[in-house]
């Protein structure tokens, strides 16, 4: 069982180290994020002034074609991952980004336009392994949580692949008819 004093001791510990704590939680907790931390760090640590400095140049517009064919348009900052954009803007893409960018699920699978795909940062071994398990894989597929916005991506269109459930439904329907 817990040593009786432990909890209270920790409370004290945490309180008196608030400065450290703040520093620690900035990098870690908070919202899910891909691996674009380096790019976003200045914005986070400089707070208000950095925010003010953010001009329209640092914004990137992305169009998502959802499973039903609907187009969702959202803006993100340079350095944000596509998962960040979906989460921050509350885009309604069912089941997207279930593992919060930890490369465990492949639900953030997106399909890119050829000319964008060619210019994306090199893929890591870990992303390739997870991509192997993605549903509806194409030649221009990547995992959205690993793709960080850059200026050249402005106005790009990415497609959300058909969901497993959709595929199942259509099979069911065809069996019925």
């Amino acid at each position, binding site marked *: *069982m*817990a*040593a009786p004093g*432990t*909890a209270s*001791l*920790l409370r*004290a*510990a*945490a309180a*008196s*180290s608030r400065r*450290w*704590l703040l520093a*620690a*939680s900035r990098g*870690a*907790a908070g919202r*899910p994020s891909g*691996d674009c*931390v380096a790019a976003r760090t200045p914005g986070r640590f400089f707070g208000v002034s950095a925010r003010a400095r953010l001009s329209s140049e640092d914004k990137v517009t992305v169009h998502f074609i959802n499973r039903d064919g609907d187009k969702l348009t959202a803006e993100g900052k340079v350095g944000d991952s596509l998962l960040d954009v979906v989460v921050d803007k509350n885009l309604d893409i069912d089941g997207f980004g*279930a*593992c*919060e*960018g*930890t*490369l*465990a*699920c492949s639900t953030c699978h997106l399909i890119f336009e050829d000319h964008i795909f060619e210019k994306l940062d*090199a*893929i*890591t*071994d*870990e992303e*390739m*392994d997870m*991509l*192997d*398990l993605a*549903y509806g*894989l194409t*030649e221009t597929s990547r995992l959205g949580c690993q793709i960080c916005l850059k200026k050249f991506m402005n106005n790009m269109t990415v497609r959300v692949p058909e969901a*497993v459930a959709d595929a199942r439904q259509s099979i*069911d329907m065809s*069996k*019925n008819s």
Partner: protein
Amino acid sequence: YHHLLMNEKTVIHERFLPKQGSLQEMPGPKTLSNLVEFFWKDGFGRIHEIQVQFSQNNYGKIFKSHFGPQFVVSIADRDMVAQVLRAEGRTPQRANMESWQEYRDLRGRATGLISAEGEQWLKMRSVLRQKILKPKDVAVFSEGVNEVITDLIKRIHTLRSQEEDGETVTNVNNLFFKYSMEGVATILYESRLGCLENNIPEKTVEYIEALELMFSMFKTTMYAGAIPKWLRPFIPKPWREFCRSWDGLFKFSQIHVDNKIKDIQSQLDQGEEVKGGLLTYLLLSKELTVEEIYANMTEMLLAGVDTTSFTLSWATYLLAKHPEVQQSVYEEIVNNLGKDQVPTSDDVPKLPMIRGLLKETLRLFPVLPGNGRVTQEDLVVGGYLIPKGVSSLCHYATSYEEENFPMANDFRPERWLRKDNMDRVDNFGSIPFGYGIRSCIGKRIAELEIHLALIQVEKAFPSIPTLCIHLQESFKRFGSD
């Protein structure tokens, strides 16, 4: 299992899919013969073997069986496995964890990632995955892991010098057990235990013994979970042992967590800045309660030691058996890395054979024989309706299928090399760390520990065969000989 089938949803499904079979029609061994297999013939010890037998010879790609008294649908087809694992909801459930939860209730303990369910599980998973699952976060552990590897290599030299022939290490698995324990403790507890020293500190000896006992009793303790509660008064021993081993495990991690708390306190008292790794972060951020930290440290230690050590043992065993593979692994290291450089996680991408070696080892000898999931909605799999709430086991027979892996019985790490970055393989056939939001949270830690250790052992001892001549002894546990 009639009652399982009689719910509203099922009826709807059946109307839509008139041709599917029910669980009753699914092939599988009779309950009694299954229990005989399980208890009298030491089913646990031979679980891998039994599974392959079942799936390859007798019952096809989907069949029902009993894991002790628990009813399980086994699935041995890559696409069906993908279907079941992809159907996961917000909080997937792996298996019935009642006995684990019962112990925790009894002792007033919290559940950790393995035993927790629902929102409680998700809350802890969300915290932990942001610290130990992203490759980048785990890369920072390279340095600590390398210190442990330095000790491992030293230890191997010492052990060899003590042998008559000056070459052979007689108990490789014991060695890797200590390495894995030291490695995972470095990461989880931010402290060294001294497992690899020539004179192991007395406290650590006690811990190692306790832990080894825990693992050796684990088979018994699994029976404890499998024995129905009403039978306990008649067969009390398994449950008693189950509790005793958990007591030991919890005690072990509590000591380390409490030590860390004291360290932090004294640093604060002296006005020092508190810096640290995973445990320090968890203690200070208070995203988890102290009891939850105890529980997760305990369960991660349990999950992180023998999994890693058995995999390392199998990998070195396979290398020893295949000198030509060993030679090519060695050459890749020397050519792509140089002889003297100490590798970190940044170097692993330059060594595709090392990655292939780990994948191939786990394909042939996955430490866990399958991925359990309790269906959270009705599923039609392979023409059968699996109602909500049934345990299914996506099992490892798929990794021995010719269709998925040509020359499946052969050890060929190079099968995992990609021709280029566009080369994709549908590899649901071998998913040794599971898949999805409930997959192994220690996956990247295990990869780091195993990749770096294999590189360095390979570099230091290019003649692995003599290193592991006596490995077979250690593998009795798998019932593979």
